[in-house]
């Protein structure tokens, strides 16, 4: 089955810096979603971008989608220690009749 692959696997930055995570996928999609997981907790939905959208913003989050390259990026601006978490992208299939498939995630550490 198709799968989003996040890059890098781990990222460590200083508070106040921007964090960029990338996701690549294999087949056509309807939507791409980003989720956040604090250690030992469930995942929380951050943002959904549709295949006909190129960029979307939510607070300090900026997501881009390039369907020609089958890739997406998540930018967190002015990071905070509380942003420390794992971030996952999730993709559906264009048919829209199968569950989301998650990548392995990027572990972000923001150092105060």
């Amino acid at each position, binding site marked *: 089955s198709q799968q989003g692959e996040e890059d890098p696997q781990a990222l460590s930055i200083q508070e106040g810096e921007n964090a960029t995570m990338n996701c690549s996928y294999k087949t056509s999609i309807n*939507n791409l979603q980003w989720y956040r997981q604090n250690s030992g907790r*469930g995942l929380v*939905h951050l943002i959904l971008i549709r295949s006909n959208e190129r960029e979307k913003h939510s607070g300090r989050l900026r997501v881009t989608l390039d369907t020609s390259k089958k890739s997406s990026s998540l930018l967190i601006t002015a990071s905070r220690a509380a942003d420390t978490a794992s971030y996952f992208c999730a993709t559906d299939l264009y048919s829209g009749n199968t*569950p989301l498939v*998650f990548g392995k995630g990027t*572990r972000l550490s923001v150092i105060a």
Partner: protein
Amino acid sequence: SQTIHQWPATLVQPVGSPLSLECTVEGTSNPNLYWYRQAAGRGLQLLFYSVGIGQISSEVPQNLSASRPQDRQFILSSKKLLLSDSGFYLCAWSGTYTGELFFGEGSRLTVL
């Protein structure tokens, strides 16, 4: 508002013992329900999903099973646990296949 409850939060079981993890959703009807497993430091693996009572789709053949006895109840079971069943199990629901997923807080299973 919708809520999802998952229990138990932590479970330590001997090899060969049975397993039952429960998940219930409140505040919505006819949700899609999902069980995911997350090995340490890894991504999410979809185990089972259900679009209605008694309808279960399995993604990975193994010694686990799932049931949906009521519209908003999803149960993950095993008759005999293996060491490899250890992991973090997450229940989730969505309104559609391509929509946002709402996750429970997870159940951490350790098989000894």
